């Protein structure tokens, strides 16, 4: 792919990403489905990059999934967000780092609303004071957690134990990147590379030796749909959108999919299983699906972390085909073990997909 023109466009969408001293806002979905990813993110920042990042027990959900499913009033979510800014302020931090793409969209939307409609900010300050007695300052810098990994991608690679290269052929691994709609579609200037040429994940992939797959439906939604997934009757919407992406990427034979948003990671993983069970169709090679990883998991593998410490056993689609290509060392016998190696049983084998 010709990159000169795109690099020019990217230059217009470079965002300011703070160097250090971060307040960490956790993600509901990432904690549930990819708990190893948030652990790896904090470990990478603290132990590999020597950064100061604060993990606050007093946080709650931002209520973003409820808001986009329209059960949470705008006034309520603004005040919940304000409370998190108050906790950051009280701890003396100014750089707010968000682990969830839905939350990132929420914080960005509210931040912009307060700029455009100062009366909303004043009313929120009043509500927060009345409800909790707290006051807050606005963050100086607000980023998605992947922005930090992107910023320090070369430093991470300098500590690598392996790279995104097929150990048998020496060829770069072909990686599909999916940044998630709310990272840059709502406010393109808040995402690295904007909405057209988002660079946050492609920058990591290329810096770590891989090749980005440019396929027709690259920017299409994973199909979460918020209420559409939450209600069983409407889940067809969700799987149909993911299927559109899988069909579009299949001819390029990707070795893996890496996602920015925890929700997208979960859907791209689970819907491959559902499509296989419903239609006997798989999109990887030899009856496998395409492994789907979070960017923290990908960074962790590059840094030589154990795949089972990263939580890759929590994925429905087996990640071993990718691990084998990367020549990552792992013990298959410990995949489904507990913390001291004790047996926790094994998941039932799906009927069709591995």
């Amino acid at each position: 792919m010709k990159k000169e023109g795109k690099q020019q466009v990217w230059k217009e969408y470079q965002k300011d990403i703070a160097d250090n001293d971060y307040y960490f806002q956790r993600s509901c979905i990432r904690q549930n489905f990819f708990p190893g990813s948030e652990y790896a993110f904090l470990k990478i920042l603290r132990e590999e990059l020597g950064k100061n990042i604060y993990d606050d027990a007093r946080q709650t959900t931002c209520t973003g999934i409820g808001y986009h499913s329209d059960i949470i009033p705008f006034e309520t979510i603004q005040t919940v967000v304000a409370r998190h800014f108050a906790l950051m302020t009280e701890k003396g931090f100014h750089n707010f780092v968000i682990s969830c793409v839905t939350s990132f969209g929420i914080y960005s939307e509210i931040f912009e609303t307060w700029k455009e409609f100062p009366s909303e900010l004043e009313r929120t300050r009043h509500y927060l004071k009345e409800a909790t007695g707290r006051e807050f300052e606005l963050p100086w810098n607000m980023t998605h957690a992947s922005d930090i990994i992107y910023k320090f991608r070369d430093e991470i690679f300098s500590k690598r134990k392996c790279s995104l290269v097929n150990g048998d052929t020496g060829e770069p691994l072909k990686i599909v990147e999916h940044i998630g709609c709310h990272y840059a579609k709502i406010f393109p200037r808040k995402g690295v590379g904007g909405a057209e040429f988002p660079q946050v994940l492609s920058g990591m992939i290329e810096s770590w030796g891989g090749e980005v797959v440019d396929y027709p439906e690259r920017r299409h939604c994973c199909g979460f749909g918020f209420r559409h997934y939450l209600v069983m009757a409407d889940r067809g919407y969700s799987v149909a959108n993911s299927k559109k992406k899988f069909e579009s990427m299949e001819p390029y034979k990707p070795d893996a999919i890496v996602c920015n948003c925890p929700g997208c990671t979960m859907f791209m993983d689970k819907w491959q299983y559902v499509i296989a069970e419903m239609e006997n169709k798989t999109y990887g090679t030899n009856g496998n699906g395409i492994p789907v990883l979070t960017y923290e998991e990908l960074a962790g593998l590059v840094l030589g972390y154990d795949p089972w410490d990263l939580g890759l056993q929590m994925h429905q689609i087996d990640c071993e085909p990718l691990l084998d290509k990367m020549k990552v060392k792992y013990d298959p016998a410990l995949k489904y073990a507990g913390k001291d190696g004790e047996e926790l049983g094994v998941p039932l084998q799906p009927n069709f997909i591995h």
Partner: protein
Amino acid sequence: MTNASPDMNKVFKRITEDVRYKEGLKSCMNCGVCTAICPAAEFYDYDPRLLLTIVQSKDKNKIVALLKSDFIWYCGQCMSCKTRCPRGNCPGLIINVLRKVSQEFGYFTESRMGRQQYAVMRTVGENILKYGYCVHPEAVKPELHPEQGPVWEWIFNNRKDLYERLKGNLNNDGPGTLRKIPAETMKELHSIFEVTGGMKFYSLIDEYSKKKVKEMGFEQDEKNMNRYFMHVYKDTGQGNS
């Protein structure tokens, strides 16, 4: 344009006074780019261009009809329309306003997809107030989520050991993944919901849903409300609930 009743004027006022209406609809020129990019328009009989045309017309009869229909519930909130609109409009944001007002006035129970709000409130809504999380491992029950597959069922059955193995802090005090949200924090969260109208909004969804159950000829007891939950949760409109 037909004459609007006082109630319709109140509805229209609620829509237009919302800052998200002011932000999301400046002046639509009907180019249709939003519809071209919209995943919901591809899957459902949905058309964000038509949505803005109706809202922009200020025809209150048509707007109230929208609020009673499935049409406003089709949007998947991806906000792809925001990126593409040459005028900076955001039909997805107008959808948020219309859905809010549809629930405030009880119109949502008139459509199949609108009635699903009861299920959303009973799942994610209750999770927020019970756990402090939108999603919590104990609430993702395999029988309600068969699409999560056998690996999730294994995680669900071994959640205490597995989250501990992954350095989590499931249901325990202190910081960390899936920690128990402290009681004082939960008190603050509930207080925010009281002060900002979040609690009242849940009550409205509950009350209008109970009214619907009564209209359907059933007692509004717990057993029937649970049956109603499963009905709206599973009903695809094709006789499969």
